């Protein structure tokens, strides 16, 4: 039999109808995650055509994008907190899920959270699955050896009605990451380094498989950070072969298989990793032994430098110049030492428990620098509870940071958590696009360690200098 990659095995296993020159493949979807922002129009189409949801049992709903990050007592509070339109969208989502018989992890659930954080932590994200959501960071689930990718609202409607999608088979890109990380350098720095190397369109048309010793050594939280930002390199999906680290993470989770079903699942999952002779359409190799903490300086995630390096020289490119002008950054000058106004620690990229622990290791015994606004938003209510059980919340609040309810929050500023015009925000999120965090906001993407270092020093700072020896 021909050697196959992890992606090809998952793809082959879900082809209801194989692709041909005339038509794309009909691909079966094992898990459809839905949230309030990208589904209302899809439900409207279903209703207008008199169609029912094919598999409500394979659909899971939550509220994350436009939800407030302060506690609410009732849905009536929403209008005042996030505005009438967002509040209406949330209520429509609750009603649609209820009417369609979809399980909704809403405000009354302690399992609510960012859609890409709760799937894994509930154990409903599993190796070998196809997982889609109307959100480009669905690539996160690839950390488990699942094929997860973002879709538009029309496609959300397709999955609601048929549990299938029409897809052309993408190409494959192997990104091999070797070497041992230095202290203070994290998974976020690896993925920013990869995007810097391949560029923001380097993965277009491809599914990435991250492999190599540096990837195998990562925890599941860290693997999720890597796969999460595949889309920032242009790839709709990024995958990592499941291994014992994966299985240990999933064992005993509420929606993971149990008993004999667990044993059977693990046997099947062990067959998923790419065959030794599997071929990829492209390959990229990266060594991280010399990698430094990475930060962005421009307005896309490919505009990234080691924290101690200067912003690249001006080559006369107008897009580059426009970007630097927007950021108020000078070509050839360091980012290090620049004053920051806001620090955001959160998002589906970096708001899991290990991210918060790392941030806390910097905040412990220190104070947020005067004039810096620091918002820490856990990825889920479960992460929030765990962090509070460990006392992380007290470290943050004692330092002067805000400790919030879970949600997407300041990553995209839909819920009123925004960065002001001209303000510089060091953010653990995934996109530094113009205006992403608020009109005129300037975003510097970084790891939780680097973000926390900026919070306590009030400047862009190298976290390695603050870590306890």
């Amino acid at each position, binding site marked *: 039999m021909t050697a196959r990659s992890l992606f090809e095995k998952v793809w082959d296993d879900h082809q209801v109808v194989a692709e041909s020159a005339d038509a794309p493949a009909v691909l079966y979807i094992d898990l459809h995650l839905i949230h309030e922002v*990208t589904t209302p129009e899809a439900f409207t189409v279903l209703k207008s055509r008199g169609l029912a949801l094919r598999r409500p049992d394979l659909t899971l709903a939550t509220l994350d994008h436009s939800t407030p990050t302060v506690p609410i007592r009732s849905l009536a509070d929403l209008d005042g907190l996030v505005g009438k339109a967002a509040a209406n969208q949330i209520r429509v989502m609750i009603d649609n899920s209820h009417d369609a018989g979809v399980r909704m992890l809403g405000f009354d659930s302690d399992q609510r959270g960012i859609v890409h954080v709760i799937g894994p932590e509930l154990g409903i994200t599993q190796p070998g699955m196809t997982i889609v959501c109307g959100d480009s960071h669905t690539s996160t689930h690839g950390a488990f050896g699942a094929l997860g990718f973002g879709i*538009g609202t*029309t496609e959300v409607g397709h999955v609601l009605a048929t549990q299938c999608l*029409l897809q052309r088979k993408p190409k494959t890109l192997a990104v091999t990451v070797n070497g041992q990380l230095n202290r203070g350098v994290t998974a976020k720095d690896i993925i920013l380094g990869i995007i810097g190397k391949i560029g923001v*369109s380097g993965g*277009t048309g491809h599914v990435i498989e991250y492999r190599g010793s540096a990837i195998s050594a990562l925890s599941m939280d860290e693997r999720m950070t890597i796969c999460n930002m595949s889309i920032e390199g242009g790839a709709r999906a990024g995958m990592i072969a499941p291994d014992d680290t994966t299985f240990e993470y999933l064992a005993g989770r509420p929606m993971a298989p149990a008993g004999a079903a667990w044993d059977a699942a693990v046997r099947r999952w062990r067959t998923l990793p790419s065959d030794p002779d599997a071929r990829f359409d492209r390959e990229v190799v990266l060594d991280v032994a010399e990698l430094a903490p990475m930060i962005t300086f421009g307005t896309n995630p490919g505009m990234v430098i080691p924290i101690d390096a200067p912003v690249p020289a001006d080559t006369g490119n107008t897009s580059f110049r426009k970007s630097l002008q927007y950021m108020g950054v000078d070509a050839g000058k360091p980012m290090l030492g620049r004053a920051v106004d806001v620090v955001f620690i959160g998002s589906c990229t970096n708001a899991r428990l290990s991210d918060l622990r790392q941030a806390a290791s910097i905040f412990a015994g220190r104070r947020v620098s005067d004039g810096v606004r620091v918002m820490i938003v856990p990825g889920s209510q479960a992460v929030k509870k765990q962090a509070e059980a460990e006392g992380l919340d007290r470290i943050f609040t004692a330092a002067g940071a805000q400790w919030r309810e879970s949600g997407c929050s300041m990553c995209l500023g839909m819920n009123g958590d925004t960065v002001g015009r001209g303000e510089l925000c060091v953010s653990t999120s995934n996109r530094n696009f*113009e205006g992403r965090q608020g009109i005129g906001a300037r975003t510097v993407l970084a790891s939780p360690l680097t973000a926390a270092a900026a919070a306590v020093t009030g400047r862009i700072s190298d976290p390695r200098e603050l870590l306890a020896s």
Partner: protein
Amino acid sequence: MEKIIRFTSRTVVLAQADIDTDQIVPARFLTTTTREGLGKALFADWRYDDKGKPRPDFVLNQPAAAGCSILVAGDNFGCGSSREHAPWALVDYGIRAVISTGIADIFRNNSLKNGLVPVIVDADSHAWLLANPGAEVSVDVEACQISLPDGRKLGFPLDRFSRYCLLNGVDQLGYLLQQSEAISRFEKNRAWQP
């Protein structure tokens, strides 16, 4: 969906590379529950000042842009989020084709489902189009090619299925629903159940 066979228009040019979906339609406009009316949010932060007044220096606000239905954009157009609001906003505004050297995957998929034609051209032709805003260009979906004013014809990639759907105004859900028996068979016979 409306059939799209061929059309001709002057171009409007946004030369910047990597124009992301947050620029095409900022997140604060995503609280809508309908796809209509997003044209006014298109490129909102580039198009309007703080008071909501059109910025005269932005290309879409200039008289020459009126009535243009072909957007020529820098490389990697539509990168970023999966929001279908981006093609909805472009179509609602009146754009029917985007020409670039690269178009992001999810945006491309979403465009094809909304009658917005994604056209990929080579770097030299792209450079000419960027340098000649207002050029009269024809987009021929049937022939999968565009025609430039000097008579040059440039083919662009479009898979047969997408071409068929655009030419016939077919929405893909209808095709998927016809696969319902195959889907049931797949669900029944697969080796494991999710």
